[in-house]
């Protein structure tokens, strides 16, 4: 692969991730609005929100770590995008496998913790402690799911996993229990109800976002786009066979994002300890069962 080609991919992959992420966010808001029998936001609303936040005339920084934390959380996801294979582009997928990707997906939470820590707002501190607790809760089933999938396919390389699914069958069919556990885990990763403990607008005033204004909040909105994209692409690659072309790849992403949104609206919010207890009991139990089946089959 030529240097020019890889350079182009390094720019295109995060850019495409952001653009698809915008539409994923739009779909989530639109579906939520329709379920609540509202019209919902206009087509380019997520983009207007982000541009508006970046062109605010006053910006409050709470210090160097606040700025660095925001860069860290954006950087974590932007780097994660080049390790995610999409149709036609594989970036650094063969150099860094799925374990690198899991590491990179934890960087944004830590960046957020650093940045919010300097705001010295009690709501923010509570929010970030809840966010890290939630990460502890959903990462256990998520990592067991990924371990099970990698054991089944016999590789940690995402491009190889996708190629194997194309020649045999989708992961969803060959290991349905792991796929179900993974779906619950990504619901928690997206921070939707009933796992919305760290945003909780009525309780801790949006938690980590409480002191964010202007471009800082705008960066969090960009992060949300990239987060949804990263999670859905990872799930699609593991269980839905990745994409042959963009035309079947993008509908799969929207389907994966749609499932949590469809059921999230009917739920209230769990308490923090209940989230931990529930996620360590049911999805972790399912994931361990799926892992056991994979090991026994193997």
């Amino acid at each position, binding site marked *: 692969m030529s240097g020019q080609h890889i350079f182009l991919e390094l720019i295109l992959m995060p850019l495409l991730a952001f653009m698809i992420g915008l539409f994923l966010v739009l779909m989530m808001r639109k579906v939520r609005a329709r379920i609540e029998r509202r019209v919902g936001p206009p087509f380019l609303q997520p983009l207007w929100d982000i541009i*508006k936040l970046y062109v605010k005339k006053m910006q409050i920084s709470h210090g160097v770590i606040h700025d660095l934390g925001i860069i860290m959380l954006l950087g974590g996801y932007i780097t994660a995008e080049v390790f995610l294979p999409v149709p036609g582009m594989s970036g650094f997928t063969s150099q860094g496998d799925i374990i690198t990707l899991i590491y990179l997906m934890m960087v944004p939470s830590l960046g957020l913790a650093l940045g919010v820590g300097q705001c010295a707002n009690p709501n923010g501190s509570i929010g970030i402690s809840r966010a890290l607790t939630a990460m502890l809760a959903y990462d256990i089933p998520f990592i067991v799911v990924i371990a099970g999938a990698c054991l089944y396919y016999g590789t940690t390389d995402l491009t190889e996993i996708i190629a194997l699914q194309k020649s045999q069958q989708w992961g969803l069919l060959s290991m349905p229990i792991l796929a179900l556990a993974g779906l619950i885990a990504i619901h928690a990763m997206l921070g939707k109800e009933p796992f919305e403990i760290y945003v909780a607008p009525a309780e801790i*005033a949006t938690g980590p976002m409480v002191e964010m204004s202007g471009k800082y909040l705008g960066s969090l909105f960009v992060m949300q786009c990239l987060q949804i994209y990263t999670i859905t692409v990872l799930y699609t690659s593991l269980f839905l066979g990745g994409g042959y072309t963009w035309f079947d790849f993008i509908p799969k992403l929207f389907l994966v994002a749609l499932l949590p949104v469809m059921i999230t609206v009917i739920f209230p919010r769990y308490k923090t300890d209940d989230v931990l207890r529930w996620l360590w009991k049911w999805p972790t139990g399912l994931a361990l069962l799926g892992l056991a089946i994979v090991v026994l089959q193997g």
Partner: protein
Amino acid sequence: MKDVIPIQTNNTETIAVSKNSKNIYQQAIDTFSNFCRARSLFVLHYCTGCGAIELPPAMTSRFDMERLGIQPMVTPRQADILLITGYVSIKTLKRVILTYEQMQGPKYVIGICSCTVNGGMYWQSYATAKVLSEYLPVDMYIAGCMPRPEAVLTGLQQLMKKIEKGEANSWENYFKRYDYYLGNQQHLFGDTWHTPTDILEEARHYHLYGAESTGNNTARLIKYTVEHDLTKLDAPLREKDSMTKRGKK
């Protein structure tokens, strides 16, 4: 103490900013920025008055603010619009001012109900602030007792048009004419009134410092903060008539 500081009721028209200094690219960027600002408004509700009851139908399925790009936010840092529904008592006004000063410009204030316009049915009360625009730069009043959700949405749409034309700049007045607003605030709260936000320093930083930013009232504030050691003494920019930083209360 309240007798010492008279209320000031001079005109509150926006001080014009010269647009000649901008070249065509800056104008294009400004136009696009205003276009985006008008399409994405985050609202912070300050609902202690009765007008608050008209906002849930404006937000939910009957009228649905989100189709206009307006959504509720929960902290002043994130919000663009401060929506004040109904009367503001003197105690409430202190909180409203603290909230307003924490918001990031461009920021807009909307007064809903007659009580914010002229005191409404509370005009004889000793405990309410009568005219909101004497204490904060108000962009839009939506009169009525109470205005229906249609009126609220019409008001918001008029504000959106103003923003798109680049005319909703009254938030700059709070910096340019801080002396006037501070004087009226002191009239109600006494001359020990001070907030954690240093408006004069912010005005300097964002180039919004004008001839009317300082005056007798800001001098009173500076005197108070210096006497009570609320100033940061090591700040290099400190001058005779200015105050660089104020500590928390």
